C-alpha cells in the first residue's frame, strides 16, 4: 500500500471543480413540469440517495427536463448539468450524450462528435471509484425515462 500512500493527495480539486460546486449550490432544472410525458425515480443503492427525473417529449425531441436530486454534490451537480444540456436535443443525441458520460467515467476515449461542456468538470470523479455511481445517477435514470429503450443503448 505504501506506493499508494500519496497517490490521491490533493486530488480533491479534481473532484470538486469550481463549476461542480456552482451547480451544487444552485442546481438548475428543479422547476416541476406541468405536463410531463414521463417521470422516473432513480435510486443509488450504494448510498440510498434518490433522484426524480421528468421530461416532456415532442416528436423525437426532449423539450423540457426536470431534475430533482436528493444526493451528494456530485450527483446534484451532474443532474443540474444534465438539466442544462439535454432540453432541445433529440432522443438519439441524448442517448449519445449518455453513452459519452458513461464512457468518461470508464476512462474511455471521448467521442469527438459529442460536446461534454460543463460535464468535463466531472472527469476527475473517475479517480474516486466509489463516487462514479453518484456522477451517473442522473444519466442512468434519464436513460430509463427515454422512449424506445430497445434502441442501441
Amino acid at each position, binding site marked *: 500500500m505504501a506506493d499508494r500512500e500519496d497517490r490521491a*493527495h*490533493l486530488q480533491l480539486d479534481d473532484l470538486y471543480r469550481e463549476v461542480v460546486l456552482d451547480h451544487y449550490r444552485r442546481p438548475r432544472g428543479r422547476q416541476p413540469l406541468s405536463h410531463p410525458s414521463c417521470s422516473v425515480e432513480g435510486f443509488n443503492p450504494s448510498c440510498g440517495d434518490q433522484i426524480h427525473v421528468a421530461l416532456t417529449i415532442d416528436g423525437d425531441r426532449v423539450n423540457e427536463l426536470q431534475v430533482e436530486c*436528493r444526493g*451528494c*454534490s456530485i450527483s446534484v451537480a451532474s443532474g443540474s448539468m444534465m438539466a442544462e444540456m439535454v432540453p432541445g436535443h433529440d432522443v438519439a443525441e441524448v442517448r449519445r450524450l449518455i453513452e459519452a458520460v458513461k464512457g468518461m467515467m470508464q476512462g474511455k476515449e471521448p467521442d469527438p462528435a459529442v460536446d461534454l461542456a460543463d460535464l468535463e468538470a466531472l472527469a476527475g470523479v473517475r479517480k474516486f471509484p466509489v463516487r462514479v455511481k453518484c456522477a451517473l445517477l442522473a444519466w442512468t435514470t434519464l436513460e430509463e425515462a427515454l422512449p424506445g429503450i430497445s434502441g442501441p443503448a
Partner: protein
Amino acid sequence: MASSSPAGSTKPPSQGPLGLATHPLRPSDIRSDSVEGARSPLDVAAIRRDFPILSRRVHGHRLVYLDNAATTQKPLVVLERLNHYYRSTNANIHRGIHRLAEEATALYEETREHTARFLAATDPRGVVFTSGATGALNLLASSWGHWLRPGDEILLTEMEHHSNLVPWFLVARERGAQVRHIPVTEDGRLDLTRLGELLTERTRIVSLTQVSNVLGTINPIRAIADAAHAVGALVSVDAAQGAPHHAIDVQALGCDALSFSAHKVLGPTGVGVLWVKPDLLERMEPYQGGGEMIREVQMDGATWAEIPHRFEAGTPNIAGVVALGPALDYVERLGYDAIGRHGEAIITYALDRLRGLGGLRILGPTDPTERSGAIAFADPVVHPHDLSTVLDQEGVAIRAGHHCAQPLHRRYGLVATARASFYIYNDRDDVDALVAAIESARRYFG
C-alpha cells in the same frame, strides 16, 4: 492535526490549495501529554504504540481513525498470534491425533473457554464460533425460526442493524410470522411506553441491539428481557457494538442468546461469537450441515453431534478464533471500567465540540452517559458522503451512509448520516482533527 488550533478558531493554522488544513505530523502530536494527559483512565499514547496502523499516513496526514463501529484496528499481540499460529501450529482441529492438530484443537477450545469467561457464561458449551455477528444472527434466526408458527410475532426495534432485521424477515416470511418493532423516540431511545402493547402472548422472540451503531444508545436490556420472558418469549441480544465498550455478563443481561463480531473488538475478520444458553442450544436444530457437526451419517440422513459442535459445520476459521484470544486479553487487561470511562470522556468531549460547530443535527441521546461508541450527524449543507471525502483528504476516516440501518434513518427523515466512532486509541486530538476538518468542508461547500 488540528490539535493546536484552538477550539472555535475559524481559520486553521495552515491551508492547502482547497482551504483544507494540511499540517504535517509533528512529533509532539504523539506525546502522551498531548493526548488526554493524566486525566484519561487509559494511557492512550502507550496503546497507540501497540497498533502499527496508527502510524500510517493518509494523504500526507496522520491517520485519524474514527470508523471503529465498522471495524477496529488490531494490536500487535493479535497479529503476532496469527503469525505464530500459522508458523508453528497450523492444522485442522478435532479429529487429528497428531501433535499439530492436538495443539490447534487445544488453542481453539481454550479460546472457547476464554470467550465463555469473557461473557461471564458458566459453560463453554454455550459458545459457538461463527463467521461473524451476521453469521451468528442468521444461525439463530434460522434455528429459532423452526419453532415459529403462522401468527407468531418477532419483536425487533427501529434502531436495529440490517443484520438483526433481515434474517428475521427471512424466517418470518418462511413461517408466516409477523415482525414488529419497538419505535425510537426523537432523542434516540427506545420508546418503552409501547412495550406493554407490543409484547403479547404471540411474541415468541425478541431480538435487539445492546448499543445502537448509529445513535450510540445503550439499551436497557435487562428490563426488556424480563418483560419478554414474562410473556414467554426468547431474547437475543446483538452485542456487536456493545462488546467493544461494555463488560458483558449474560446472566446479568438475562438474555437467552447473544452475538458479537471479533473484528469489532480488536480481533480478526471472519470470526463471530454466538452464545446461547446451553440447555436451549441443546434443543436447537442445526443450521449448516457438514464435517464435524454430525454424530453419524447414513446414506440419506444424519444424527447430530453434541453442542457446540453441532453448530460448527466444516473447518472453522481456526486461526481467526485463536487470534481472538489475545484480542479479548487486550481489552480485559485495560479493563472495561477504564475503557468505559475513556469512552464516556471522549463522547462527552466530541458531543461538546460538534455542538459547538452549530447547525449540525446530532442523532441520539443528549446525555453522554446514555450512549457509547458512535456519533452520527448530518450537516444541512454538506452531504455526508462529500463530508467524508473531504475529511479523508485530511487523514480523518469516518463513515457516511445509512450504516446498515435504513429504517432508523427513515424514521428521522434522513437518507444518510456521517458517523464518527471512537475506541481506546482515540483521544481529544482526534476529535479536534475531526472538528477542524468539518469546518474546512463547510467553508468549502458553503
